[in-house]
């Protein structure tokens, strides 16, 4: 797990990349169940899955994900969240449209997610063993974030962000061209940064 600090939000952000994830279906079901559970048990259930579970193959770089995280923290501080929590907002921020269901289906955890990027925003005052909590939920291998480059599915990103006909990439036909990947990474990062004013 890796951690950075956003001093201006007085928040830490913990990120972990899991490969060979086996329980995507279970995680998704736990999230749904927790959202409607009541009482102290409900709070505990929600706390246990209080993360953004992001399908890692749709993430072009740590910067791509962190841009979504930054914008979500900003929306939270301005009380303009489009979704319920800062974690679901991260997933919403990544999706090119404003459709929440579509965002969760595409960028969230689903039954056959094999790699997950797990994000947890912690306000400075909280004291938690985040890594332990992550490992309790996700059954998979925790690997360094630098492994992400072997996970990213560039053609799926291009498809979802509708980049295939953009002039910026049309000159680079080879889908494995690293130059093409760099341009796509820049486009999706920039898009996520400006999503709040995109329309």
């Amino acid at each position, binding site marked *: 797990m890796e951690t*950075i*600090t956003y001093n201006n939000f007085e928040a830490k952000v913990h990120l972990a990349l899991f490969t060979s994830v086996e329980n995507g279906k279970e995680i998704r079901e736990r999230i749904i169940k927790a959202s409607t559970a009541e009482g102290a048990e409900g709070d505990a259930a929600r706390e246990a899955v209080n993360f953004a579970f992001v399908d890692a193959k749709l993430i072009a770089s740590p910067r791509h994900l962190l841009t979504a995280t930054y914008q979500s923290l900003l929306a939270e501080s*301005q009380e303009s969240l489009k979704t319920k929590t800062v974690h679901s907002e991260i997933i919403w921020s990544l999706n090119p449209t404003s459709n929440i269901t579509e965002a969760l289906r595409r960028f969230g955890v689903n039954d056959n997610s094999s790699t997950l990027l797990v994000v947890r925003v912690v306000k400075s005052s909280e004291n938690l063993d985040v890594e332990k909590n992550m490992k309790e939920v996700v059954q998979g291998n925790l690997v360094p*974030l630098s492994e992400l480059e072997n996970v990213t599915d560039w053609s799926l990103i291009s498809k979802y962000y509708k980049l295939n006909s953009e002039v910026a990439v049309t000159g680079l036909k080879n889908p494995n061209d690293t130059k093409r990947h760099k341009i796509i990474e820049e486009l999706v990062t920039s898009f996520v940064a400006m999503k*709040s004013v995109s329309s």
Partner: protein
Amino acid sequence: MTPTVALLESSTLIRQGAEAKVYKSYLYDGQISGSDARGEPILLKYRFNKQYRHPTLNSTLTRQRIAQETRSLMKCLRSGVHVPGLRMVDAQEGVIGIEWIEGESVRVLLGAEDEETEGTGDTSDLPDLEQLEHDPLAKFNTTSSHVMRLIGTEIAKMHAADVIHGDLTTSNMMLRQRSDEGTEVLIDFGLSYVSALAEDKAVDLYVLERAFASTHPDSEPLFQTVLDAYSKINSKEWKAVGRKLDEVRLRGRKRSMVG
């Protein structure tokens, strides 16, 4: 203190213009495996409130302009125009964060004095002798005519995407050299808008031509190189834009006036 104000306070002010303050900043502390500590530096552009303007007008305008600027940038990025990428946007507070460009302004590279905070107050600033002797372009291993071709190419791509810059000057262009990409010219934004009209594109070029004439004396042949490159890249529109440019040059300015 709002998070964005806190971010500005932790940043280094590098320039204050009439419209905005510009800072160098980092969004976070810490390190992610495979990237630099604190991530990459970014440039923050803060469109501060104008005290003379009604507060309601201030906030609507700021929001509108941030939206306009970021959309133009996004349109350029999608169209392969070399512009800085976007890193954060706070339309409410009037701040955008863009990619930090390590490079030199074309204005300086062509031998004019660096702009202080704003205009130098002199319409006829000449390159000083020392700069003439040590061609600043040598550092980039390039020539002025090559830079002109790069400029023409970028403007042509931008116009082909129907983005009008609104304030093209050599101070708004940066030259950057990267080992993998070679030398490129990047365009900085501010007053841009979207238009498909040849007239607007011609005025854009005319503004640059005037900026060349006032900042870089004897630059006429250089500007022609810009246009040559432009006409090659945006060949579809060049006929209409070029004709309009001649018109705009003739009337000097936009309209004759009635008292």
